């Protein structure tokens, strides 16, 4: 029963990915609609399991979703990058929704803390994994998006999707070197914004 459900979810997501790979229109949106509920389910389960106040690891969630939802024998790594890109967007939305909910009912007494485990390190510069105020990050990302949407998207892919530089570069259609450079200045921008907040 459980396995059957997962299977049908899996083939739908895989089909959407393969369609995207062929360049079919609307495949990306379809994918997002399929991925969000599954991510939500995984995240909810993890939050129930973990102690109150425990941090979420978005990239772990995204990868777990990938393993669950995609038949890996049928997709290549570019499909994977694309899936993770979509999932990253879903993840950001989900976490922000969650943080807002929490702010409303005050149970957590503030914003959700998210461990940015994939955000660290670029060109030999390391950031210790640390907790970040999610809503503040979301707003800073919006500000960055107004200045350079591609940079904001890149951060989303790296932070929330756990994509490597190459994967993110491929998804955005830029060179690895460009992605690396863009990410570094984007991260400095965010660090400054969040530091001031």
């Amino acid at each position: 029963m459980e396995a059957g459900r997962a299977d049908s979810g899996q083939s739908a997501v895989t089909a959407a990915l393969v369609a995207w790979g062929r360049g079919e229109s609307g495949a990306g949106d379809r994918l997002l609609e399929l991925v969000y509920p599954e991510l939500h389910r995984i995240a909810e389960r993890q939050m129930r399991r973990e102690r109150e106040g425990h941090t979420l690891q978005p990239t772990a969630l995204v990868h777990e979703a990938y393993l669950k939802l995609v038949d890996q024998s049928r997709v290549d790594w570019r499909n994977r990058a694309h899936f993770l890109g979509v999932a990253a967007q879903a993840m950001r939305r989900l976490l922000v929704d969650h943080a807002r909910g929490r702010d409303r009912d005050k149970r957590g007494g503030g914003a959700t803390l998210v461990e940015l485990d994939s955000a660290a390190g670029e060109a030999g510069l390391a950031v210790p994994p640390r907790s970040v105020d999610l809503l503040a990050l979301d707003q800073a990302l919006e500000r960055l998006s107004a200045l350079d949407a591609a940079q904001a998207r890149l951060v989303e892919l790296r932070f929330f999707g756990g994509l490597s530089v190459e994967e993110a570069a491929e998804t955005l259609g830029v060179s690895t070197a460009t992605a690396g450079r863009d990410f570094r200045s984007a991260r400095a921008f965010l660090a400054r914004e969040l530091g001031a907040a």
Partner: protein
Amino acid sequence: MTPERWREIRAAFDRLAPLSRVEREAELGALAEGDAELAREARSLLSAEDRDTGFLGLSGAAALGGVAPHRQGEQVGPWELLAPLGEGGMGTVFLARRADASFDKLVAVKFVHAELLSPLLRERFAAERQALAALEHPGIARLLDGGESASGEPYLVLEYVEGLSLLAFATAKKLSRRERLGLFLQILAAVAHAHRHLIVHRDIKPANILVTAEGEAKLLDFGVAKILTPIAEAEGATRTLLRALTPEYASPEQVLGGATTTATDIYSLGVVLFELLTGRRPYRVPTGAPEEWAEAALHQEVARAPELKGDVEAIVAKALRKSPQERYATVDALADDLRRHLDGRPVAARRGSLAYRAAKFAGRHRGALVVTALAIAMLAATLAVAGTRLRRERDRATLEAATAQSVATFLAELFQRADPARTRGAKLTAREVLDVGAQRIESDLASQPVVQARLMMTLGAVYRDLGLFDRAQPLLERALALEERRAPQDELAVAAVLNELGLLDRMQGELERARPRLERALAIRERRLGAEHLDVGRTLSTLGTVFRLTGEAAQARALLERAVGIAERHAPKSSESGKWRSNLGLIYQDAGELEPARRAFASATEVLELSEGPESPLVAMTLDNLGSVLRTLGRPAEALPVLERARGIVERTWGPSHPQFGNALNSLGDALSDLGRNAEALPLFRQATAVYSAALGPEHTYVAWPLRNEAEALLALGRPSEALPLFERALAIRRVAYGEAHPETAQSLTDLGLGYAALGDLQAAERWLREGLKQSRLALEPTAPALAEAQVALADLLVRLQLPAEAGELYVEALPILRAAYPAGDARIRTLEGHLAELGVAPPPP
């Protein structure tokens, strides 16, 4: 901000970000002249990025604050905790005493909460232990004991010093200036002692100096000490992480993340002296933020103080020079100058300082030349006065600083990803962290070949040590190619990579490839570092072990004895000393010198337990060797618990698929066989064969060990037909790997003979045993017990074949070898003497 403006700011940031701090300052200055706002934006982005790395040590210390546990009365090892003494730089310190009252002095027990024990802190803890173990001086708090509590927290037991910190003591006792200088001279003697043992303290400050009621000064907290082993580059980089825990006392080179030397301690001593005599720090800063102190150490001149005049002002100034080369060359030189001053004789510092001032007035622009490489570079960039020689110096200094910084931050990221609460056993996490690191080195560091090469070497070595040879090989080969390209500048870096690669080759059984690489590494290191350097010892030990494996025993012994000599003279209690002793022990064991071998392994275990901790993989390795030699000495009952302990450590540290676990299983099986418990040994040997085959490939020479051991156990159980095919596989592996005239091939030839003899095919047995003895004579030293084994095996068969004369000759040859190798009354000797008696041959007198 508009998108257009952001593009301009980004472009400036992109251009500045890869530069060193020095170059950034110059560029920002130039940028500000055209567009001050743009420069401000770029600077704020750069500093936002820098803040994220920050002073790691400070944040670590801050994390420790407020977690002083209530654990009075608890017992840790043999020590009973009495009361908390305070929070040190790295953890909590407790007053304690021996629970069994066998030692009546109070001690200080220092440890870190297990859940706070990041790899970084663990490393610092190990560094402190290693540093202190080498030091014995009345001015240094002594290390009494150390270990791990039941819950896995490492702890150190130190001499408890009851006293006041340096400044508090001086104030409370209203010491005169002369008394203060006397006290300071005591501290200098302690630091000089540490320096003579190649240890730099790196965190000298008044709070780390306690003065007892009797007025004896004691130096504490070697938690960030650096052992001045010649820098394996990666190690140097990791240690750079620990820099500048206390920015008020940090030297310019610590602030810049450059190389720390004894001159670093001399600088910090200068700050302490300034404060001891004036009650103030030598710099003025607005708010006291760490960055301000760092900035001041780099750029500010030492403040004038009315308390400091003439000689003493000159002495303090010389200790506080920005450039390490211009400070006192040694702590003793500083002490000498202070004594001269106290005796009213002229001081060396003043001559230097007059020359310094003369130089200062000689030319306005050259005035800054004596300041740091940093200032030089700025000046050069802005005034464009740099000659080529100066430019080279600058490039090298900034390149080194930038490299160390990049390597350090990259590694920091990797380590921080590992779950600190589970540094042991959490292999998967560490492995994932490594894979991410390896991927990023390739993709993200292409523009920084020096950093890239060093990190590739480091990660390659880590993969190798985890047994992941396929991943290690390409990384190390790439690192070598990168370093070769820059070889004329940094030949020692080439030697370092060659050494790592040679070790990998050796571990993979590629001895012919290992040898020329290690010989080249040795030649470079000897030429550049001299014959007594610890790095030379490292290569000697690795190469010596290769010679041992190729059967060139005499060369192996010569190299390893040289390595052990170097360790004993320069770092007797270091890990190196332990490792090399253990390697030498193997040579002794091969030659049948079992008692020296046992002593070597036992002392290696002792040294490594102290320097590496009792759960260290290295301890497991020496335990394995110790167990093996105890077996050969005919003491399997003593060997068994030693080997069981080794197996446990290996499984917990390396995991069950590592070749080392194969070693542990194999040795334990051997001990069980010796005790006649062959049926219990069989599954261990089979598991060992499986582990080696999976990790190293089925043709690897290691696989032959458990194969032949399993066969021997089967023979002992009376199952020769199952044993023969295993002996044959072992022989085939060894012939391909070693050729005929090799101790292990010879052993396999004899093995087959014994197998056929057990099956009753005496003709075949004779052929194999004769061949086995022939190759043993060629391959082994005449004193090797393995030679006697081959002789006895053939002689036993000859008795069955009714050829007593030849059998007797062989027994007579073998007897003195066994007598030299084993203690009197050993079963093997008695059996042999019995055979001779049956043949009517008088045994030769002992």
